[in-house]
């Protein structure tokens, strides 16, 4: 497939160089699906239907195949997320050390409407996930790709408050 065609794609067109390097590592282009989806999500914050169609075209599969992968992995977001995405662990260790209270605190303090997972100002989004492997410092959460453990209201404010100010 000529690359000038791919370069004209509105969402991923500018990343074609990077993507082609990844595709070159595999005998079959479709194997590059996960890394290409990560590029898309890191750029856009989430993966829209249009993004999936572009990924499908780039690696030569149908959009349904891309959607199968995207919907399988919870770490791919199918809806827009906030500027900072919080993945709060809800599995056993965190649950008994107060993950529910942490969730309630964040939702209350950082402007989440009831039932919504994205704050009113769009700065934060929250998602309750299965074990993130930080049981020793439960309750724990990931903000972006950074781990924060031993959460207390003060610790939460320290982490999220500083982010709140930056933006």
């Amino acid at each position, binding site marked *: 497939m000529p690359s000038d065609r791919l370069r004209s794609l509105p969402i991923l067109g500018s990343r074609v160089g990077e993507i082609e390097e990844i595709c070159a590592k595999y005998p079959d282009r479709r194997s590059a699906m996960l890394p290409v989806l990560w590029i898309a999500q890191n750029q856009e914050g989430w993966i829209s239907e249009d993004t999936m169609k572009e990924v499908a075209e780039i690696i030569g599969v149908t959009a349904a195949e891309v959607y*199968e992968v995207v919907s399988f992995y*919870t770490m791919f977001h199918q809806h827009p997320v906030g500027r900072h995405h919080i993945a709060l662990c809800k599995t056993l260790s965190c649950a008994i050390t107060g993950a529910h209270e942490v969730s309630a605190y964040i939702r209350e303090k950082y402007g989440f409407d009831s039932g919504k997972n994205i704050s009113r100002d769009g700065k934060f989004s929250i998602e309750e996930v299965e074990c993130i492997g930080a049981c020793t410092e439960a309750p724990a959460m990931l903000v972006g790709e950074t781990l924060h453990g031993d959460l207390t209201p003060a610790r939460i404010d320290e982490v999220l408050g500083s982010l709140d100010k930056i933006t």
Partner: protein
Amino acid sequence: MADQSVHPSLKPAPEDVPFVLNGKEVVGKKGETIITVAAREGVYIPHYCWHPSLSVAGNCRLCLVEVHMPNPRADNKPTPLPKPAIACQTPVVPGMHVFTESELAKDCQSGMMEFLLVNHPLDCPICDRGGECMLQRYSMEYGTGHARMVDKKRKFKKPQADPLIDIERNRCIMCTRCVRFCDEVAGEHVMGVFARGADNYIGTFGQGPVSNILSGNVIDICPVGCLTSRPFRFKARVWELVQTQSTSVWDASGAKVTYWTRSNQLYRTTPPSRKYHETYTINEDTAEFIDNITRFGSDFPAHEDRWEESRVRIGEGLVPAAFREAVRQAARGLTRVREQHGPDALAVLVSPRATMEEGYLAAKFARTVIGTGNVDWRMSFQTAEASDAAALAFSHASGDLEDGFDAVVLVNGDYLHQAPVFAMQVKEYARLNEKPLILIGHHHDAYFAPHASWQLHCRPGETAHVLELLALAVRGNDNAKDQLSAITGAQAEELDKLLQLLGHAHRKGLLIQSLEDMNGANLPQDVPALLGLKSALGEAWDYIPVLRDRNAFGLYAAGAQPGRLPGAEGAVRKAWGLGESAALPVDSGVPARLLAEKIEAGEIKGLLCLGADILHNAPERERLVAALDKLEFFAVTDLFRSEITEKADVFFAAASHLERDGTYCDLEGNLARLVEALPPAGGSRPDWEVLAGIAKEMDGRGFDYSSVAQVFDEMIRLVAPDFAGSFKALMLKGPRNDLTIKDPGGARTRGPEYNPGDYRIDGAHFRWKADPLPTPEKASPAPERQELNEGEFLVTWGEHVQGSDYHLDRASIARLLKMAPTAEMNPEDAYRLGLEDGDRAVVHTGSDSIEVVVKVRRGPAPGVLYIPSGLGDARFAGLSAAPLARLEAVEAGKEAAPAG
């Protein structure tokens, strides 16, 4: 491209594997799985996800069996495996013991049933699958009969994805048959398994439709009530319906169907219903798929436009008349024209969907009663030369898919849309058995392209040249090989591999050619060229020409076309009661294609048309319809009131495909019965009665038939000796009831009742015996190539099954069977023009323009645009060469420029 040094199809046959199944010694082949061997041995293992035509998924776990393996540490004594094994994925091993009905196996089955039912709603009373649901059956047979599940069941929102297929995800057991069907058989991964774990669900991307001509089959292969037919939704319970085994009247593949009826109404059409616990093989099972046209389009006879009684013209209007009166009027009209203008001023047309018996009677009627050779069914061909080329193709037809093949060559054509089930069988056989597919010509079927080992592209008009070069190259002419490489752009080493493959003399090969391509414009060159290639390749190669017309071969065999009698002339004279000297017009006769011209010139004055669809679907429809006004006498049989039937002097209400008996011949030469599923509506009559009635009224001798079986009897005695090969099966007499089966659900199944113990036609196979055509000494000169500017294309076209019968426009869901006009182009061209799949564009040819949806496929050659002409636009039909077209993209949201 195939790059293996030894193609898999050349590998030796797998060795035998003896093992023990339920205490009985059986033999499997190396690589076979337990479930396949067990099915062959008549041992039924319950299963959901396994399907003989699909890849193994192994996810329903219902086929768990107990397996004991020979233990080398204990004198090869069979020792139980630690865990039960799934029969669908476990290959057979010498000396293994398999138990499918042991305590452990039964325990596994009932345990798995309980798991599968955990989230399944108990809504059988409102589920359309009720009565033919595998979940219901297995619950009764293998389940425990009660549920221990007390928690809330999982619930999904119901999507509105497809207008024809209803998805009820709560009932899904995640067998993924539908997903694999779309991916593997239908050829596009449009359905998928989304989300994960307990939240798994099936669907399409963006809730889109499952757009494919074979998509309806996911309804049948769904073992539970998740995918059901929307048109049939909540219409009836299946056990209240009467099933009639019949055949498709559109698909020239000869697909068998079951019509489900009650109270003179058709409720649904399915492939032949598979009996519970029936064993099957892969080849039999793929034959159980049918196309959407047959499945969803068969209900048109109930349309309100139907005229249920015969009519005769009185003054300006057509008034209802008794059948006898209509017959008298028709006989009088035909006699008058014959007396005033001679017999050759009369013509008889037969619909390409007429039965063999009707075609035979039409031929007999025209030649003996009227005394003319003007009888024909071939309307779609461009020219008389194309019709002759098709007749040549028919006389060389020899292949049968049942015999399998080691390599297949497909020349130009949109096979999936011209003979859907045939195309599917060819592709599936090649895919499952790893046989090479070779595509040659200016337009390759996009359905085959992803599986092709070689694609030799050329421009329209060059196909014959390419085939001749290939024939010469096979004969070892290096010069021809170089030319071939130059014209198709194929690499020399790829061609070497291809020639090596084709050169294997012991191979059984299949050459397939579509006679529909560009309405046969290139057939006069292409057919002899391909037959020349066949001779070069040797006797192991068979040839199958493909036409979308359902009964093309049957009508050819029955002699319903100029230049052909149903048998040897002497035998025909004897059967028809003609002496040696009596006139029997054979070679004279106007091809149907020239009818409009001949009527305009005043050479044809009277017309008897059996089935108005042949006129409705003519390439030059408008001209033909206008010409009908010039006729002195016009009689027509059809179902509906239409602008054509309104012009008739005598109208006969015809019995529809649901209401009459007859015989069809498919493109492989196999016969199939059309069986009466409903009584003829009102005063409608099958066409053979009309013909016999008129003939008797005109004092024709030998038309005293009391049933269509008598016509078949007379015809087949003439037709049969004309064919070499396996006609034995046809002549076998069988007990009357051997085709009548009782469904376990208790529904009545009707066999072909009209055929009281005469012939069993299953397995009857026609083989024509024409002398092989010589390979040319040298190739004809290459046609000159036209320079194409940016955005310019050569347009080719082909007919689709959808557009082959105007009756389908009156099906209850005709709107959904219609597709928007599309234009298929090569990815190279699409990328150069910045177009992608699904974009809209306008094609300008001369002063004409048409808006299309762009399809980007590996089918058409670069610089070629393929437009299916059966989808509502016939403007290219009637042309004899690929016209030059300019293509202009339409920006999203904007309206197309007005036609200029």
